[in-house]
């Protein structure tokens, strides 16, 4: 047995939710830095103008990334609510039920945001 194993967790139960929480958190941290850069163009002192950046943001692949971001943030927030509830005394035996109830809420919210964000009118006018 290694004295310093890389991960000392059992590959079951909350492991999957936990790994996703870490991955989504890292993604959001990167997004945060990018977001701070984008908003900093409001000062007018950055090498790129706000309007030019907004043109780039309007591109379909950026829209696709934004839809992904919504999903990632929603997962992180909803699993975070689960962690908070378990931390504040909800019995841990309910962790799976709690996770899936929150994920169903997430799927509903994600579908709604997809409906709002997806450029339907552009697709329609192009067709």
């Amino acid at each position, binding site marked *: 047995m290694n004295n*310093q194993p*890389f*991960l000392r967790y059992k590959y079951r139960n909350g492991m999957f939710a936990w790994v996703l929480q*870490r991955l989504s*958190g*890292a993604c*959001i*941290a990167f997004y*945060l*830095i990018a977001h*701070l850069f984008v*908003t*900093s163009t*409001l*000062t*007018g*002192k950055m090498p790129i103008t*706000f*309007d030019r950046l907004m043109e780039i943001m309007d591109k379909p692949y950026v829209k696709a990334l934004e839809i992904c971001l919504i999903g990632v*943030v929603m997962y992180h*927030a909803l699993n*975070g*609510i689960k*962690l*908070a509830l378990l*931390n504040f005394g909800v019995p841990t035996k309910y962790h799976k039920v709690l996770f899936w109830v929150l994920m169903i809420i997430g799927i509903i919210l994600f579908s709604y945001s997809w409906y*709002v964000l997806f450029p339907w009118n552009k697709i329609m006018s192009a067709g």
Partner: protein
Amino acid sequence: MNKIKASRAQGIFWGVQLLSGIFLLIVLGVHFWALHFNTGNQALSYQLILSRLSSPAWKVFDTVFLALVLYHALNGVRAIILDFNVSKAMRGLLFWLCVMVAIACFIFGLNTINSVM
């Protein structure tokens, strides 16, 4: 720092992570609503952001938001890196690196918030 003191600090870091997470849920909700739903049926524009950011209340809101999100993000990144069995010396370095990145980002963001009069 002895072992008990160190673990107590880590406990506080986790507590603040949890509380900042709960606050971020509310603050992010408001932020998202203000920028994507409360724009009077028009796309987000330079003018629209400027008129919102010129209000002192929104400046305070955004500053608090920035501080909370930076704590939550960098404490989170630190926690992820700590799971890779980081040596004791590196743990200290990592902590101060995160503090410095957070301060730099805070100043950078605050500069944006205050550039709008």
